[in-house]
């Protein structure tokens, strides 16, 4: 009994102070169409706490300068701050080295870098790349483009009717020609959390490296790239309370060193003559041109924000909310959930049978409720379910049971109007 209390005590320690959290996000105070904003479109992008906004202001009011090449003070402090972010990202995902962290524009660019650079170095005609049936377009189209160019082929990990990946079939997709596996940690359309550690291990048994799309993962659960033993990992700042226009590509040193660079330009070179150019070392080899300095710097503040709340506490809060939302939404007339995987993160996709998602979206919007409707950049998922799209409510740490209640009431109202 005593033990139990102690455990409870310690797990209770870090609980989300929801009022404090909400007060950190200025936008949550605003109204939309005369109603208080209920923001449930976090899968598309999260809102930003004032800690992040203030870091941006501070950057422009006190630090702004180009990085990595300047002798003067502003250039030095900007460079240092930019490199602090790299260190914090390293710690956040527990990379082995800082130089394995490439600052990119976002998940899409990160995946494209691998498709282009790993593709050019290691993938040829008739080679095979394995992706899954639940990928975001950003993890489909770059591979299709590579296949068009190189004559390689895609193999698809199928998905069950519940929205789980079919791991048994996955095992059978490998061949001598398999060169890369790329799939998502968490599905943006369905919320499914995939058994990535197991799936990475399977690929490694075949000596095939794995790129993991972490765009919907890092803001919800603790990711340790060394523990997962993943070879490449991609995510976006704007989905984890950070600024837009910045993301991360993590890659194991060895792979990154053996890949050609992506874009050519300033910073990514060691020496340039008109005849011959030598490339810079990691991470700069993959960071051509002036980076998004402001967002690069403020990403550290987003990471700090998440760390201060604690990913475990965030997850517990969101899991509770998810359970509550599913329970309450189940009571809505004619609702049909799309994606009912065993392990789910903060995404709920659904339809009100007999209505079009667009209609639901418009009416909810008039009630101040922001949800996403449509195919969520995952058309193949919609195709498999035979639907044009879904209504998607996606949760973040600042959402509350009241938000869920407003959503449920809104849906009931919409259903009344539309059915």
């Amino acid at each position, binding site marked *: 009994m005593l033990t139990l209390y102690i455990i409870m005590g310690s797990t209770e320690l870090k609980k989300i102070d929801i009022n404090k959290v909400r007060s950190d996000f200025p936008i949550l105070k605003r109204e939309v169409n005369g109603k208080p904003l209920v923001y449930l479109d976090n899968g598309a992008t999260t809102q930003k706490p004032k800690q992040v906004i203030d870091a941006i202001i501070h950057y422009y009011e006190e630090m702004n300068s180009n990085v990595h090449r300047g002798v003067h003070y502003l250039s030095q402090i900007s460079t240092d701050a930019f490199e602090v972010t790299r260190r914090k990202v390293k710690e956040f995902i527990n990379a082995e080295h800082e130089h394995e962290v490439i600052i990119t524009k976002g998940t899409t660019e990160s995946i494209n870098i691998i498709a282009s650079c790993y593709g050019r170095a290691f993938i040829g005609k008739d080679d095979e790349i394995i992706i899954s049936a639940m990928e975001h377009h950003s993890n489909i189209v770059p591979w299709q483009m590579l296949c068009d160019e190189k004559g390689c082929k895609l193999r698809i990990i199928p998905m069950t009717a519940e929205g789980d990946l079919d791991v048994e079939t996955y095992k059978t997709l490998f061949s001598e020609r398999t060169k890369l596996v790329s799939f998502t940690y968490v599905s943006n359309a369905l919320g499914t959390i995939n058994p990535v550690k197991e799936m990475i291990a399977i690929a490694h048994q075949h000596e095939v490296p794995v790129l993991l799309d972490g765009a919907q993962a890092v803001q919800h659960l603790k990711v340790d790239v060394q523990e997962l033993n993943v070879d490449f990992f991609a995510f976006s700042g704007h989905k984890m309370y950070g600024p837009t226009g910045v993301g991360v590509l993590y890659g194991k040193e060895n792979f990154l060193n053996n890949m050609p660079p992506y874009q050519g330009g300033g910073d990514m070179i060691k020496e340039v003559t008109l005849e011959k150019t030598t490339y810079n070392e990691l991470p700069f080899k993959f960071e051509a041109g002036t980076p998004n300095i402001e967002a690069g710097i403020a990403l550290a503040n987003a990471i700090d924000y998440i760390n201060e709340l604690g990913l475990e506490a965030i997850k517990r809060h969101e899991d509770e909310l998810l359970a509550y939302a599913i329970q309450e939404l189940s009571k809505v007339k004619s609702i049909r959930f799309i994606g009912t995987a065993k392990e789910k993160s903060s995404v709920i996709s659904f339809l009100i049978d007999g209505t079009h*998602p*667009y*209609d639901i*979206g*418009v009416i909810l919007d008039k*009630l101040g409720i922001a949800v996403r*409707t*449509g195919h969520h950049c995952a058309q193949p998922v919609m195709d498999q379910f035979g639907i*044009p799209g879904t209504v998607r409510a996606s949760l973040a740490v600042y959402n509350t049971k009241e938000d869920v209640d407003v959503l449920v009431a809104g849906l009931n109202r919409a259903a009344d*109007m539309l059915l």
Partner: protein
Amino acid sequence: MTINEKQDELIEDFAFYTDWMEKYEYIIQLGKELPLIHDSYKTEEYIIKGCQSRVWLYPNMNEGKIDFTADSDAIITKGLVSLMVKVLSGHTPKEIASADLYFIDKIGLKEHLSPTRANGLLSMVKQMKLYAIALSA
């Protein structure tokens, strides 16, 4: 009634509704009055793709005037289409081609006409005008 008289009538109708929800209820209502396109025209040729909802639109030339029939898979889009059809159907290609559709702004639906909207309303208006131009040639 001229196109503008119809527009003015709609503006008056909508002035009635101060609340967003009432306005949309009315739009949904109007959707039910839309003269539906014949199933045989629900083909690729007559589709107008929005980002999220689809519209089918068919122009029928009748004694120098165009009658539109249409449909959409989304009810609100259908209502918006119905508004357009109401205003433009039964007019000559020339009248349609030169119509200034000021009522959309006035009844507070301008937002639906932005090129980046998910409903494809703007493409639809463009399509109606293109038909009119083609049929007047």
